[in-house]
């Protein structure tokens, strides 16, 4: 177990390091001359040089990378070009907001897609199964902004059931916030639904087919006991790790959903930073997303191995 854990943590660190190199490289290709970009084409060359020197953007790339990454690890994510203020508080605030939206989406999608996936498996090959799978696949492939627009039209404009802005009035309580987050969460639910349901279905089919299920049936256990104690327990294992890997797709969707619903999360922060060519903010935002993903997939592996005694005791992958 300890070896498995250690190996897993080391892999996450390597992935994060590679990610930081990719992010840093992308952040350095275009700006070339950051001072010129900030001050505009008509600024005096001396002012541009002075600004570049002040921000340290005139040093060799390798030095800049070493400096950037060592500060980043210590929590200093640099200063935003656009706001002329430290990046870190923006990132923290945006992550907290996005976490709320993501939590609402996950709370809706996990029970829904597990139930639908199991239902499809229990009716495998029949119309119920086909319709759940086709609906799930279609929901997964339609871009969030398209389903978002259609949902806004139906529930926000025609029926007027839900607000079309995700930003709640100041002082809104838990339910007030939830009320504003419900509509933006649904496109994210649609995106995640198909994949999780598909995994739950596959896991259930495999468990239904297993020897231990046959044994349980043959020894006369009631059907509900077989289903809950033997089938679902094993079926939902692989689904746990899938749910965590979906975090990356969720965050990709946040860029669009937070823009569409005018919500100040990490997605809209990255989007605004990209529009303003605010590279420190953009790099920090993307790397923060990478960290969230790395932690989520690490957690998923831990939960998976904790739930699955074959890994807990066997120590082999």
């Amino acid at each position, binding site marked *: 177990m300890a070896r498995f854990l250690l190996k897993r943590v080391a*892999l996450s660190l390597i992935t994060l390091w590679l990610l930081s190199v990719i992010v840093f490289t992308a952040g350095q290709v275009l700006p070339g001359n950051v001072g010129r970009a900030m001050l505009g084409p008509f600024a005096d060359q001396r002012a541009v040089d002075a600004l570049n020197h002040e921000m340290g953007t005139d040093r060799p790339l390798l030095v800049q990378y070493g400096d950037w990454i060592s500060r980043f690890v210590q929590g200093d994510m640099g200063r935003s070009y656009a706001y002329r203020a430290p990046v870190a508080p923006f990132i923290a605030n945006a992550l907290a907001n996005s976490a709320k939206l993501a939590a609402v989406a996950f709370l809706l999608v996990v029970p829904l897609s597990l139930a639908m996936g199991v239902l499809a498996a229990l009716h495998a090959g029949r119309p119920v199964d086909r319709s759940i799978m*086709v609906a799930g696949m*279609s929901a997964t492939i339609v*871009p969030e902004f*398209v389903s978002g*627009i259609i949902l806004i039209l139906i529930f926000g404009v025609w029926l007027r059931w839900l607000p079309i802005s995700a930003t709640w009035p100041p002082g809104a309580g838990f339910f007030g916030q939830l009320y504003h987050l419900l509509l933006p969460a649904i496109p994210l639910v649609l995106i995640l639904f198909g994949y999780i349901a598909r995994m739950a279905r596959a896991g259930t089919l495999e468990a239904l087919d297993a020897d231990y299920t046959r044994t349980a049936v043959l020894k006369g256990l009631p059907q509900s006991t077989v289903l809950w104690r033997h089938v679902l327990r094993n079926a939902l294992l692989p689904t746990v790790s899938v749910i965590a890997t979906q975090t990356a797709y969720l965050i990709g969707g946040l860029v669009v959903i937070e823009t569409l619903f005018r919500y100040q999360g990490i997605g809209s922060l990255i989007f605004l930073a990209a529009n303003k060519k605010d590279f420190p903010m953009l790099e920090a935002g993307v790397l923060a997303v990478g960290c969230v993903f*790395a932690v989520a997939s690490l957690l998923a592996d831990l939960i998976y191995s904790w739930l699955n005694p074959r890994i807990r005791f066997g120590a082999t992958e």
Partner: protein
Amino acid sequence: MSDASAAPRPVSAPETTVAQERRERAGQLLSSPTFLTGAAIVVFWAACAIFGHALVPYDPLADDMLNTLLPPSREHPFGTDQLGRDVFSRVITGSRDILTVAPLATLLGTLGGTVLGLAMGYSRGIVDEVLSRIVDALLALPTVIVALLALVALGTSKITVVLVIAFGFTPIIARTVRAAVLAERELDYVAAAKLRLEGPLHIMFVEILPNVAPPILVETTVRLGYAIFTVATLSFIGFGIQPPSPDWGLSISANYGLIGGGYWWTVLFDGLAIASLVIGVNLIADGIEGVVNG
């Protein structure tokens, strides 16, 4: 296979049965309602992309400031947008750019992914280990975010969008190809080719590649759906196809601010067009997968 009599492929079936099998698979595909529905939708939009400009009643780019934001009527079946442009004509012609950029990106990504995947799966060892780590790092980020980052760095144009999406797809396709190659490389026909002293390039591209083609085809079709998804999303956030194109994602991004005022026709039809196209592509992928995997 220049000299068939000297070195017959030991395991391959006679040509007639290969052709028969191919015909059988094509027949299965053409009798699959999933595949046919998807194909009909995609063919419709492809036809619009090619012939749409000649057939639509109005110029999709022509402003008409006296007739802005008209609701659907007989003259304008889908209404007009805030510049008075005919929404119907724009929706029909709006498939052209996305149906150029997305397939090109998918094709490039498939090429890159196939070469990389063959190299990884066939060589294994340290090359595979290093490349797999890089692939994992790339996969740790959603395509949209990688694309956003790269497009800000490189500047937005159709070519950069194609390259960025292709680059994002390469590792994903490489992983599929690698898995397929790992299963194939232990088979007898590969061993036989090695005994004939064929080079690694010959074994990878002439012996193994045809046998891993079906999973690559499935992955490519699935990726095409995601490429359309990504291009539409990038256009919506302003980093994809640029104005004045009547592109669907771009139109939605220009008009969605108006829907609070009830001007639903400026975004609904474009949204339904995107949804139908991606679902169509995915139905095709589902149909092909059903035939390939039995």
